[in-house]
């Protein structure tokens, strides 16, 4: 594969998939730089058109470019930084092929984004084999930092343990004691239900039952009626994507909400945006980031909005944070050597608009606070993308799986 290089395009159109740009100080490469060939190359491997393209996709490529531009402007490093990107179409073989090619022939130092667990898990193994870095922002499988963990991968934004557990624990604390699960009947849904059930019971809540529906399903009304009949206060949605969207839409159609509250165990602001507040009001969900939390998040998000015409998801914001931290580490050790950079990344705390005192654990998990959101009523939303009330901050230590429970071989050496 040939990578096209162009000079910083300012108006990055989302439709432009073949996107590559060179940034830096031109020819001035200091002799002492140990960055191989004087260029740090970062590959953004994402879903540009499939099921996850709204929450990652073209917006993620924009966030990556912003990270690089800001880093260059701030640090004026002695090396160039280049972003290359590709569409993995959510197919494991295309993702791992592309990553291999980038590492072998494209002199790419780190590959990032990797939405959808299939591609993330596949590329992590390629990265390990080639001794390069994988920064995962889009995928949520908790296997990334458990069974399949390795020492060159970092899981940056969220995992299903955090979104499920965070929501479970926090909602029980808010008074939602009785639960009923609507679970997508495959590995992801089943483990989400299992993990969340454990935390609900540990927090003093009670799970009244669950119904497993095939994945994918479009008509979930039958299952919702069962959930309604259970009389539970909270209906936990242990599904994702279109299934979740249709569950919410139909729950409102059948008058189940707002009498019972829905809790999304894995949802993104783009889902809320496409459903609208009328159908989603009152829902609880856990996210790692919300654009309207504080002046810093607002400032960055508005810059992002100017380019993408949509507010960032936690995945896109997290990608900016991950790339920035990576580049800072490269600069600090003045090398793009994988082990040196990883050591520096694990040593330095992460402090930016995305994370406060973030820290990368031995299992590769970037530990940071998560937030319990409740979706606003339409009347309380005063401007575009004014969707959430932040109900609680879930401290990093509570949000993620404790290291002691980790199934990652690197932890229990």
């Amino acid at each position, binding site marked *: *594969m040939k990578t096209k290089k162009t000079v910083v395009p300012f108006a990055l159109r989302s*439709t432009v*998939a*073949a*996107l590559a740009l060179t940034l830096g100080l031109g020819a001035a490469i200091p002799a002492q730089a140990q960055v191989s060939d004087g260029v740090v190359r970062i590959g953004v491997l994402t879903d*540009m*058109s*499939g099921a996850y*393209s709204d929450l990652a996709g*073209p917006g993620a490529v924009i966030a990556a470019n912003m990270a690089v531009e800001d880093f260059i402007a701030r640090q004026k490093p002695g090396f160039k930084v280049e972003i*290359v*990107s*590709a*569409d*993995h*179409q*959510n*197919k*494991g*073989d*295309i993702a*791992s*092929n*592309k990553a*291999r*090619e980038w590492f*072998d*022939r494209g002199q790419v130092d780190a590959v990032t984004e990797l939405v*959808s*667990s*299939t591609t993330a*898990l*596949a590329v992590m*193994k390629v990265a390990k084999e080639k001794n390069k870095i994988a920064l995962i922002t889009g995928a949520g*499988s908790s*296997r990334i930092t458990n069974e*399949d963990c390795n020492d060159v991968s970092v899981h940056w934004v969220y995992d299903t343990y955090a979104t499920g557990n965070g929501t479970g624990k926090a909602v029980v604390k808010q008074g939602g004691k009785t639960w009923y699960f609507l679970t997508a*009947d*495959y*590995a*992801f*849904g*089943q483990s989400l239900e299992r993990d969340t059930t454990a935390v609900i019971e540990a927090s003093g809540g009670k799970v009244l039952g669950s119904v497993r529906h*095939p*994945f994918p399903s479009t008509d979930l009304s039958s299952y919702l009626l069962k959930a309604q009949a259970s009389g539970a206060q909270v209906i936990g949605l242990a599904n994702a994507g279109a299934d979740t969207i249709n569950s919410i839409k139909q729950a409102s159609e059948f008058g189940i909400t707002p009498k019972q509250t829905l809790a999304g165990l894995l949802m993104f602001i783009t889902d809320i945006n496409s459903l609208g507040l009328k159908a989603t009001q009152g829902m609880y969900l856990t996210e790692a980031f919300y654009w309207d939390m504080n002046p810093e998040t607002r400032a960055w998000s508005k810059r992002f909005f100017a380019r993408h015409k949509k507010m960032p998801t936690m995945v896109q914001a997290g990608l900016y944070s991950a790339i920035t931290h990576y580049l800072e580490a490269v600069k600090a050790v003045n090398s793009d050597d994988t082990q040196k950079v990883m050591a520096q990344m694990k040593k330095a705390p992460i402090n930016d608009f995305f994370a406060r005192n973030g820290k990368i654990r031995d299992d590769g998990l970037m530990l940071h606070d998560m937030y319990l959101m409740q979706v606003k009523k339409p009347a309380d939303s005063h401007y575009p993308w004014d969707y959430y009330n932040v109900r609680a901050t879930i401290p990093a230590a509570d949000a993620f799986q404790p290291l002691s429970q980790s199934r990652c071989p690197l932890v229990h050496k």
Partner: protein
Amino acid sequence: MRRLGMALALGAALLAPAVLYPVLLMKVLCFAIFASAFNLLLGYTGLLSFGHAAFFGGAAYVAGFTIRELAWSPLAAVAAGTVLAGVLGWIVGRLAIRRQGIYFAMITLALAQLLYFICIELPQTGGEDGLQGVPRGTLAGLDLSNDLTLYYVILTVSVLVFVLIHRTIHSPFGQVLKAIRENEARAVSLGYDVDRYKLLAFVLSASLSGLAGALKVLVFKFATLTDVHWHMSGDVVLMTILGGIGTVSGPMVGASLIVTLEDQLADKVGALVTVIMGGIFVLCVLLFRRGIVGEASAFWQRLLGNRNSSGI
């Protein structure tokens, strides 16, 4: 002439890893086997299956599972995948050959979708995560984790498969299949047990598709839902049509083109990749139904024919 072409192709395949990316080449080979197996059914028996992903993906999961969870050797695992695909093919075939033409296509599609849903729900497949981290292992002392070694192993298997398919087509069995394709009623009246022949062809095609799927697991070290999705069934139809239905080398050409195209387009067109695939489909059906190889050989024939006639 044909011999020379084959020798050239083989020579190119032997040298290819020096220039091209071995993993991509292996992917091409796997799909070439898959498409050739599919062509055995569509091109030589006249049966359009829209459910071949079931055999390809089903075998992939079996091979991945037996290697990773049961620690089988790659040889045993690939064999297991192939056998399972054959058994699946027997079941699907038994049901589908009860109807003809379009119904046959719809039945195979529906049964493959049934298997897709089963694969999603089985915990062993890992759902959307896929069955990941399947080690390549060793074969007769050869370390398959080396890309080049594996490439030559798969190349050998591919050549054997192509020879097998070639022999099948030209055997009496193959002749009967062609007779069925041309005129089923006549084949029946000649006393052939047509359903039996169809079923045999279906099982053979399914097994070889399974072989392709199992080999792909060795290459990529994982099996995922993509392998059993109906898009995969569509892909193999497209490869066969594009290359040339009922030609020996057509499916290989089609597979190489589609795989390379998918790979190359990955960073350029985004969602439009399905539009392009669909467009190729439509163009093939409308303009060159004989496919690349079919059209080329027709062109060649015409050229020869013209020269002969003008020679006098």
